[in-house]
Every structure is written in structure tokens, then in C-alpha cells.
């Protein structure tokens, strides 16, 4: 089948580029369909911020450094929420997997 296509004028650069474009479009459509619903991402982000708040508040209670624990951990919690979202859309590897490639 591939040999046939190549015979039909796939030899020139523009034909090959066109076929690559088609393949890329199909791939992109496939990737788009795999994306989860936005509501899932909202819950992930929310969860990170709430976890940051809880830890920061507990930290302040234990050390008496209010409000610094809350400030720092809320920001870190926001980062954790973004991390959750990036994981859920598959932009980052899962827990414990290598991320240097």
C-alpha cells in the first residue's frame, strides 16, 4: 500500500509534506479527544489550593508564624494544583516516572 502511494506522485517534496500534514491533523484530533473534561481540571486545581491552605493553616497553628505558613503554602498549593492539571491532561509523566528525556 505504501509503495503504491509513493508511486502516485509521493516522490516530490510537496506530496510528502501534504501526507505528513494529514497524518499530523489526524494525530492532533486524536489527542484532542483524549483530553478530559474541564470540570475535572477545575476540581484538580481547587484540590491543590485547599490542600495548601490546610497545610499552611496547620503550620501556622503549630509554629505561631502566622501568616507566613499560609502565604507560602497557599502558593505552593497553587503550584500543586497546576501540577495536578498538567498530570491529568498528560503533559507531565505520572508519579515516580522519569521526567528527563
Amino acid at each position, binding site marked *: 500500500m505504501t509503495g503504491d502511494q509513493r508511486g502516485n506522485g509521493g516522490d516530490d517534496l510537496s506530496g510528502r509534506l501534504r501526507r505528513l500534514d494529514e497524518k499530523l491533523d489526524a494525530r492532533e484530533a486524536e489527542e484532542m479527544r483524549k483530553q478530559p473534561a474541564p470540570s475535572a481540571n477545575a476540581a484538580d486545581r481547587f484540590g491543590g489550593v485547599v490542600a495548601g491552605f490546610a497545610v499552611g493553616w496547620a503550620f501556622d497553628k503549630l509554629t505561631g508564624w502566622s501568616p507566613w505558613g499560609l502565604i507560602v503554602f497557599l502558593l505552593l*498549593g497553587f503550584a500543586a*494544583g497546576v501540577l*495536578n492539571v498538567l498530570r491529568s491532561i498528560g503533559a507531565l509523566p505520572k*508519579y515516580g516516572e*522519569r521526567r528527563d528525556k
Partner: protein
Amino acid sequence: MAADPIAQFQIKKIMTLGHIGPYEIALTNSAVFMIAAVVFIVGGIMLAGRNIIPGRAQSLAEITYEFVAGTVRSTAGNEGMKFFPLVFSLFTFILVLNMFGMIPGFFTVMSHIAITGALAALVILTVIIYGIYKNGFKFFKLFWPSGVPMFVMPLIVVIEILSFLSRPLSLSVRLFANMLAGHITLKVFASFIGLLATSLGVAGWLVGILPFSMLIALTALEFLVAFLQAYVFTILTCLYLNDAIHPGH
């Protein structure tokens, strides 16, 4: 006619069972529906039968089993099948309660964060306890990503731990918020019909067709959400269990 859209979520005490210290243990409408769901699921499985050519109930039970087993195998692998009873119970419990909630006049148990939070806590405690029991200290490698420069490691580890802590929160909030918001929307659209009919007369009845058709579409959507949220809870449970089984990959 303008019904309070929140009134449907009120917990009502049916009878008092006893006291533990200062706390009253009461049978509530929520508890009654949970008991009904358990009876429904267990009864459904018991009555399903074991024929070679399955009847309707047996087909349903078998399809549900195959569906959950397929989900567990594809996300947590064959080792995850030892958690199949837990995952199957969670899935059927949430699904049946969500579907009960779709029947008019019934109580939606999963619209209370106390319930979904308890389920999420059960899942995450299972993950932590089993993860530490199975892998020992290696379980904490979950928070120690490889290939990260050493000087940002302290920051990354804190963020990873917060991300892990946020899992039960987002797990419970997702299910609870979807059920709560969906049922409020249904109630609000339904009360529009009554409001239009009582305030505008015949014209109101005609205009009322608009919210009514919206209501029909939303009801269909809510059935989808009721199923989808049960499935999302299940698949996330499997993913988290997968982390407990293989923390380093």
C-alpha cells in the same frame, strides 16, 4: 410555586437509634437511601442467577462485573485485581445512589460532601496503608521524582506532597459538586415552569415550553453525569491504587 432549590438536600431525621456520648445516632433519609442501595445491589447480585443463557438481571450483573474488572485491569494491572471487591463496591454504591437520585422525590446521597469525603478518605487511606505495607520506605519515592536537579528538589518534594494531599480533596469535591450543581439546576428550571404558569396565565404556559424542553435535555445530561461521575471516581481510585502497588514504576 418557587420551590427552594436547596430544600431537596436537607437531611431529615427519621428515628433516633441511640447515643454515643453527646452525639445522637439517628436514622436519616440519607441513611435510608444508602441502606436501600446496599439492599438493591446485594439483592440484584443474589437474584441474578447463574444460567448458561443469562436473563436480564444476570446480564446486567455480568456486564457490570466485566466493566469494572476491565477498568481495574487496564489501569492497575492484574495485581490491582486484589482490590476488585473494594472498587466494585464503590462503583456500584455510587452509581446506584446517583441513579436513585435521578428519580423525582428521591434523595441524592452523593450531593453531601460528608459522604463523598468519607469515600475518598477510605480510598486514600487504603492507598497509603497498603503502599507502605507493600513497599515500605520505597513508597515515599512517589514524592521523589528522578531527573530533577538537586537544588530545586526541596521545592518539588513539597509540591509533590501537596499534590498527593489534594487527591482526596479533588476526588470528593468532583463527585459532590457535580451531583449538587446538577440537581440544583434541574430544580431551578423546573420551578421556572411553575412561576411562568402562575404569573402569566396562558402565555406563561406557552413560554413555559422553553424551560420544559431545557429540563428534558438536562435530565438526560444528568443521567450521563450520574454515570460518568461514578466511573470517574472508580477510575481515579484505580489510578491511585496503581501508585500504591507500583510506586517507582
